[in-house]
């Protein structure tokens, strides 16, 4: 059976939006429960950390370049460089490294 690409896209979009908008619209009051508050406080750090490693090392052509960029990113972020600065430094660093590696 030949299916319609636009219906495929519509189905994807409807599911993606529902997942994102339900908690935002349903949870409108500040949550008082201490466990849930603590859990949600930790969620972003854990989620982003899980997504960063080892994916960052696997994203570059040469894994060593990704690994070194990871170390550089941690150091620069530790000393307070902002979002754009850290991201751009990692890109440039990988570009330079991969010219030699």
């Amino acid at each position, binding site marked *: 059976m030949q299916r319609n690409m636009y219906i495929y896209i519509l189905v994807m979009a409807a599911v993606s939006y529902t997942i994102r908008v339900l908690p935002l619209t349903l949870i409108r009051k500040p949550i008082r429960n201490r466990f849930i508050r603590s859990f949600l406080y930790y969620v972003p750090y854990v989620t982003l*950390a899980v997504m960063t490693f080892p994916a960052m090392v696997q994203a570059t052509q*040469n894994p060593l370049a990704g690994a070194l960029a990871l170390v550089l990113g941690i150091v620069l972020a530790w000393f307070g460089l902002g979002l*754009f600065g850290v991201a751009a430094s990692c890109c440039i660093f990988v570009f330079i490294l991969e010219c030699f590696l």
Partner: protein
Amino acid sequence: MGNTEKTKNGQEYLAGTRDGIPIALGYFAVAFSLGIAARSIGMTPFQGFLASFLNMASAGEHAAFTSIGNHATYLEIALVTLIANARYLLMSCSLSQKFPERMPFYHRLLCGFGVTDELFGICIARPGWLNPFYLYGAFLISAIAWSSGTALGIMMGNLLPFRAVSALSVALYGMFLAVIIPPARKSRVVAVLIGLSFFLSYLFGILPGLSALSAGNRTIILTLLIAGGAAVLFPVRDEQMEDKENAA
């Protein structure tokens, strides 16, 4: 709405656009490779643009495109999208706490479009309550880059030099680091959690059985485990939470 508030919203919008630039760059590179996948299942550039603009999800779109290539049913596409994107449910719960209760409802509806890994990351890094215009600024520039990157990938395939793609591909992760590392400097618990997350994420990727999990599901399981465990062992003190309310 007074003039000062309008000015403030404008400033927040510009700040969002500025912080959205590295996201947009990274998105563009990733979207380009997503476009190559979309091309292989017969999508037109317009369809790729539309799919990316409406979904804003790399793993979710990639999984769905693969299934479409295998002539999946509409129900299967819905399920694949749900599983690959389920982590946004958690992020959205977390983000709901960054908005004041009195914020107009339509802002919540609009912000729903903008819950992506990266936009969520920079929103959480904003001190105090989140002004939705900050998210709009970051969303618009990154959504345009994401969608047009997909369309261009469909049109041009492999024209971008691989070295440039490789370099751009770390932009997103560099940004994640800029979000999670500064709080780790202030809180030893957060620092340990980040190290533990790195380690377990690596372990889940290589252990037999567990490595069959998709990256999206790995993220969900590890987030529930680690953040849940931390919430039991190290419940956050109220004064830590109140930083937010005081700054608002």
